[in-house]
């Protein structure tokens, strides 16, 4: 099991703590929906096909930008609010981190908060593809950096 960059690990612990107060399934989703409503979404101008990840159930847009210190900033959005909440969690954990750390991140928090099923590729909500693209982008950048 890969050990995470401290930044990414501590953010995951934060999320896990956040969710630890909910033991009811519906409460957890209520919180997720609130997060979905809050997420700073992607610029409308960037909601183009180029940034679209087409899940079969919901659509996700993802944009990635290199920061000056060689990290990555992600912004993302979804047309479904629960997916948007999940997308927001992913951005919160992975954005503004070193490329290498993103590429190698062990994303255990979804499992820990009991939402791991949303990452199943067969769920077709676009989340799994989004995470894959985040990693690919970061890996490509890391390769250029080294």
């Amino acid at each position, binding site marked *: 099991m890969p050990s995470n960059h401290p930044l990414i690990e501590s953010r995951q612990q934060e999320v896990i703590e956040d969710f630890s107060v909910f033991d009811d*399934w519906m409460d957890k989703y209520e919180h997720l929906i609130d997060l979905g409503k809050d997420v700073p979404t992607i610029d409308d101008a960037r909601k183009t096909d180029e940034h679209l990840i087409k899940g079969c159930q919901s659509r996700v847009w993802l944009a990635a930008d290199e920061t000056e210190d060689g990290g990555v900033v992600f912004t993302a959005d979804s*047309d479904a609010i629960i*997916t948007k909440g999940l997308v927001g969690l992913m951005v919160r954990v992975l954005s503004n981190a070193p490329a290498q750390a993103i590429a190698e991140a062990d994303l255990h928090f979804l499992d820990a908060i009991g939402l791991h099923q949303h990452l199943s590729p067969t769920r077709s909500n676009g989340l799994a593809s989004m995470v894959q693209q985040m990693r690919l982008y970061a890996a490509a950048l890391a390769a250029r950096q080294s």
Partner: protein
Amino acid sequence: MMDSTSLPERIRRDFPVLQRQVHGKPLVYLDNAASAQKPLAVIEGQREYLSNYHANIHRGAHHLAQLATEAFEGARNSLATHIGAADSKEVIFTSGSTDAINLVAHSWGRSNLSKGDVVLVTRMEHHANIVPWQMVCEATGARLEPVNVHADGTLDLEHFHAALERFQPKLVAMVHASNTLGTINPVTDLCRAAKAAGALTLVDGSQALPHMAVDVQAIGCDFYVATAHKAYGPTGIGFLWGKEDHLNAMPPWRGGGEMIQRVSFEGTTYNTLPHKFEAGTPHISGGIAFGIAISWMNAIGMDDIAAHEAELVAHAHNAIGSVKGVRIVGTAPQKVGVVSLIADGIHPYDMGTLLDGQGIAVRTGHHCTEPLMDHLGLESGTLRMSFAAYTTTREIDIAVAGLERALAMLR
């Protein structure tokens, strides 16, 4: 006719899965149009076969092979009788509806279609009744033309007749009942008109077989397909029914064992119906269990099932009608047990996820009918509740209450 409200009470205990919980709540299974649950008779029949008399069928001179063959061919006979086939050799086992439509598209299509020919379909078809025709059109130079659907989910009959006249199609392929809208198409009339215009007809009965009596000769179509898993049967099996003359004239599609008369490198001759189209070892346990599912439905009575489901649809329309901001998609007067809906500003995926959290299984998205979704301007698809013989009005009430709770959370 007996009291249809008592139907689920009588049969629910036949379905082990209906006793289970999901996320700590009793399962409310309203995803029957995707796949129905299986009665004990089907589950145990398959187990009994595998435990007691499994063998490869046909051409086996030993006792188990004989038993297995008789059971498998007995299932074919049941199916033939159930759908009113003239002869059981008109029933070809396939791996499902999709496979059956592909059989017709590849075998009949590639040998009968050529440049300029038209295949007519409706805009409410399942992808299974669109993509095979697109592929055969691409291979042969034929053209696929769609008939429009009204906003209420009924077929645009005027457009249908105009298209028949204008395109003089070689084949009209149409769904018997729509898996997204529930609409039951007037297939007998449509086939009569298509025939008068010189076209052959293929009816996709995937959503009809579980819900109503089907008589292929009364419908007057040339081909009829359905799949077992939506009709209380096992996965991996379905059938193509075709008029004997058509099937005889069609070339085989898949090559291999069973479908041959004699094989040599100098030349191979093919077997007669139904074997000509059944290459390889068939899904023996599936065929047998499909036969059991048919018997199970007949023991209840297709008319009673249909009556019960009509009641469920009326109940659901009523209950959903009173939920603010929700619109039912598909309000044809004749429907099978399928109710699609959308809610203003709310994504179906979100509703579906929150229903799942309450133990309620529905399906969301385009239901493999993207062209229909485009046609009706429903970019994110719908949320679909679909019913079976075991569905209760109480389950619908639970689902509608769950929907209201979900909407409250999402707004």
